[in-house]
């Protein structure tokens, strides 16, 4: 067991010793022994509490009858289709940004995960106030984690953005960020706020599974004459010619090339990934034709959640930042999803 029981589990244990699994863990875990020791000496008695009557604002979930931009939902704990399924998932609040397309018998929507954990907000989050939604509580919108989900992945409808909330989110999506509405700067890749997000990142990964499966299966290209989403694969290749010396050096030098996962009529896109000293991940477009509208890139990586870029226009010979200040190396990128704005 690597995940330790909670302090309240140890309180249960102290009051009811008939919990053999906990006893076994306790015999081996120095940290939990300390918890139990502190509980024995400091928290033996119940806290005297009386006359507390707290109701607070209600949250009344409704059946999903329609899905529209600005609506807020709680995701379903399970999903089952011919191409993907999961069950027993913790639920997440999501904000619907836009309707995307209808593929594989499902209506798909771009959504932004939301959390009540405003204390752990980071610079890529947008903070909305209680007055910004009809569910009347402050929320943290994880703009970097935008994903596409099926309507069937939405469990209950909670409410919607108010007029002011809608303006805030629209401005943020357009790149006009009000710094007072974002979280404080990160203190490095081990910032405790990032650690606190690991659980929701796991849920987000599962929620993005059905859409990823649809893309991998090439169903999107089949469904649409002109794709709104393209997928780039990333491969590391050794430099030749001018880079032979580097390639032969002790620190063998690979470059990472992103190319279209599937040939798409009329579209040419490829580029080279690199990082800079500020830990930004860039793409240098060598080819860019066919797609001339602004787009965003969703960068998928081996470990951790996908990251969505700012909107950009791919121009041959030009560089674009895909991921800002996250110390993400090209070799860690498993694929790049490009979405037309």
């Amino acid at each position, binding site marked *: 067991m690597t995940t330790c029981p909670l302090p309240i589990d140890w309180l249960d244990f102290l009051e009811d010793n008939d919990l053999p699994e906990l006893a076994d863990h306790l015999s*081996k875990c120095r940290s939990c022994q300390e918890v139990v020791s502190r509980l024995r000496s400091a928290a033996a008695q119940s806290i005297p509490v009386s006359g*507390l009557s*707290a109701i*607070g604002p209600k949250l009344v979930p409704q059946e999903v009858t329609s899905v529209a931009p600005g609506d807020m939902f709680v995701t379903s704990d399970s999903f089952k289709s011919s191409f993907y399924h999961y069950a027993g998932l913790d639920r997440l609040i999501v904000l619907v940004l836009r309707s995307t397309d209808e593929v594989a018998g499902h209506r798909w929507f771009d959504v932004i995960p939301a959390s009540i954990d405003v204390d752990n907000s980071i610079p890529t989050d947008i903070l909305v106030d209680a007055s910004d939604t009809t569910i009347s*509580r402050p929320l943290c919108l994880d703009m970097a984690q935008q994903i596409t989900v099926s309507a069937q992945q939405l469990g209950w409808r909670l409410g919607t953005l108010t007029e002011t909330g809608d303006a805030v989110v629209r401005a943020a999506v357009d790149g006009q960020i009000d710094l007072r509405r974002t979280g*404080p700067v990160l203190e490095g890749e081990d910032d405790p706020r990032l*650690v606190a997000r690991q659980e929701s990142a796991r849920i987000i990964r599962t929620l993005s599974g059905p859409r990823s499966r649809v893309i991998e299966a090439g169903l999107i290209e089949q469904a649409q004459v002109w794709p709104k989403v393209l997928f780039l694969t990333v491969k590391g290749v050794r430099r030749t010619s001018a880079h032979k010396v580097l390639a032969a050096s002790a620190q063998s030098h690979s470059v990472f090339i992103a190319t279209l996962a599937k040939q798409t009529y009329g579209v040419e896109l490829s580029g080279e990934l690199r990082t800079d000293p500020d830990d930004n991940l860039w793409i240098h477009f060598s080819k860019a034709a066919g797609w001339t509208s602004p787009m965003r890139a969703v960068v998928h990586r081996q470990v951790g959640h996908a990251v969505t870029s700012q909107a950009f226009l791919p121009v041959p010979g030009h560089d674009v930042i895909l991921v800002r200040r996250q110390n993400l190396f090209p070799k860690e990128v498993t694929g790049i999803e490009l979405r037309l704005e």
Partner: protein
Amino acid sequence: MTLDDLRREHAERGIGNDLLALLERIVRSTSATYPAQYSDTGVWNDDSRADALQDWIATRLVGRGDLPVILLTAKSLDSFRAALTTSFRQFLVNRRGRSSASNLYSRTQHTLEGSDEFKLVGGRARSSAALWTLASNSSGDVSTLSQEDLVRVAWELSDDDLGVVRYGPYSLKSSPILRQSGLITFLLHLLGSAKGAVSLGQIAATMRLRFNLASLGTAELGDSLASDEPAPLAAIEAAELASSVLAQIGELSTKCLRSLRLAGGDFDQAARSAGVSKRQLETELSRVLSLIAQDAEDRDQAMEVYERLVESLFKE
């Protein structure tokens, strides 16, 4: 008692007997893993735990409406208990973090009032609306810079320029982020570049974003600015801090710390011995150091706490 029972109780009565009993146990058990300085009174006893329970319910679970969301999104009673524990931990840490931010805002106000280099040009001196500018600025104009512009100006001075002493994952959270000379340098630069007077509230918001401070509500900021003296954060003894950190880090971290000590600081060897990747070992170590840094008074104490913590892992 099942999660559905608790949901039903909440829908009918808000926080009824069963929910309250659960919340009480979360507070009683979780608070025991934190040093007494995390209580409002500097000691954990029935009264301070009852206060923490009331505050947590009033500000977060009911006041901010977190409880119905946690109830709705939990998949099981276990995950509900885990989410409540996380919520209470954040409540405790945030409450202490606010003291730290409050200290800096209060020092800022005292610096502005006490130095000949600054002058008040409008508003009441001890309010967040008070407007301050450089004494050398003959104009009484108010700065037209946006909050974003002010933050950009604030970033023009690097941490080295300002001698920031609290930055990075191992930063010492309870120590002052800016020494007095750094604070004056910062205020001179900010007000000198603002092209007009700036309110104390704007200065505080700029500092929050520049130095990663806890956010304070208007009322709290007002209280902080109005106080005569900054309230010093209570010091935590090294032994108590080591014990508290040990109670919070869990089995994997203790395994990594032990392995690292036995390997004489060799990360590769320690990772192999602990059965984790080197990256994971570094992450666990970083998490432990962050916890220590959150409450250590200075680097010497942080080192002492780390030593005590590691030594305690070898005691039978």
